[in-house]
């Protein structure tokens, strides 16, 4: 990964495995909360890639914006649970 830090092929493979497991799981889950948890796993997989390129300020901003998106979606999940 461009030699910015001590990232070699094994670490790339491990974090890519985390992101791909989350992406496939988000498609296959049928529960709403399972889908949201899988989206969180996808972001956990791609956060070390942002850090390994050296853009730490971007990582701070993205890490604070992405959970806000999940919490916005949770507003409609709660409303749907009450109706059901």
């Amino acid at each position, binding site marked *: 990964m461009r030699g910015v*830090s*001590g*990232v070699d092929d*094994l*670490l790339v493979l*491990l*974090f890519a*495995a*985390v992101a791909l*497991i*989350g992406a496939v*799981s988000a498609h296959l889950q049928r*529960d709403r*909360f*399972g889908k*949201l*948890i*899988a989206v*969180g*796993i996808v*972001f*956990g*997989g791609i*956060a*070390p890639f942002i*850090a*390994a390129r*050296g853009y*730490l*300020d971007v*990582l*701070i901003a993205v*890490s*604070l914006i*992405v*959970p806000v998106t*999940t*919490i916005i979606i*949770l507003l409609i*999940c*709660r409303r749907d*649970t*009450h109706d059901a």
Partner: protein
Amino acid sequence: MIAIYLVAALAVFAAIRATVEKNTGRKLPYVNVMNFAIAGTIVLLLDHPLALVAAAAYFVGSTLEANAIASTYAGGERRG
């Protein structure tokens, strides 16, 4: 040097374990384990002072997200 591989393998194990779990309430502790492992990876990856702040921001954000999901999943007060 071996620490970062150990933490990354722990993240992969926690992601697999959270995926194959059926119950939603039992998924969330494994997601928390994966988030702790990712936060540790961000610190171990770079020797930069801002890496600590980035890991703290990721930790706060992911913990808030998991707690919000748990609160919505368990919040069964029917006041409507």
